């Protein structure tokens, strides 16, 4: 089965500062990768997904961007954080031959102050 690593686990950043959250996947190759965000008291929202290296699709307009420089690495970034970027960010991985199951990482807590 896949293992998804996310870091940092917790992050406190001032408004206007940059952001980089990293996700790496082990135990699989050529997965689909996803970034979800969970804002306080709300469900999860899909932000980005990627079907391969340098292939990124954005689901909602926002202050964030994503990159996939390697097959098993997915990075979420921002040049200037907003207060509204605070939330719990989850990386997810899917491979059709893994039993059609979507696996999630442990998440990264971001607080923008």
């Amino acid at each position, binding site marked *: 089965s896949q293992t998804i690593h996310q870091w940092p686990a917790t992050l406190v950043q001032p408004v206007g500062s940059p952001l980089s959250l990293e996700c790496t996947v082990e135990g699989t190759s050529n997965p*689909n990768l996803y970034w979800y965000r969970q804002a306080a008291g*709300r*469900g999860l929202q*899909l932000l980005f997904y990627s079907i391969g290296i340098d292939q990124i699709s954005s689901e909602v307009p926002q202050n964030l961007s994503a990159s996939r420089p390697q097959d098993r690495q997915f990075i979420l970034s921002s040049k200037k954080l907003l207060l509204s970027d605070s939330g719990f960010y989850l990386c997810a991985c899917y491979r059709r031959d893994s039993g059609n199951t*979507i696996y*999630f990482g442990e998440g990264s807590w971001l607080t923008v102050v």
Partner: protein
Amino acid sequence: AQSVTQLDSQVPVFEEAPVELRCNYSSSVSVYLFWYVQYPNQGLQLLLKYLSGSTLVKGINGFEAEFNKSQTSFHLRKPSVHISDTAEYFCAVSKTDSWGKLQFGAGTQVVVTP
């Protein structure tokens, strides 16, 4: 587009009592259905999923859910809960051709007390 409604934001329940978490969805196309659990400060863990076949789906930790196409529902049940079942539960759907692109409900917080 799909949407998911979890009808209860919070469900208090006593230990060893049954629990049902309600989930309704709307979609103009065929969907797959999922229930995930999130323990405090952790990621999401898959409880069960409906892809096709039998409408009664059994998952981990004694949970089961029933897919009702006519009522567009996918309610989650457990006949006897434990304190360790205290968590947030999310219902989610995806189009059958869009794996991984999940539409989540707002979540139901289950609080189990002795």
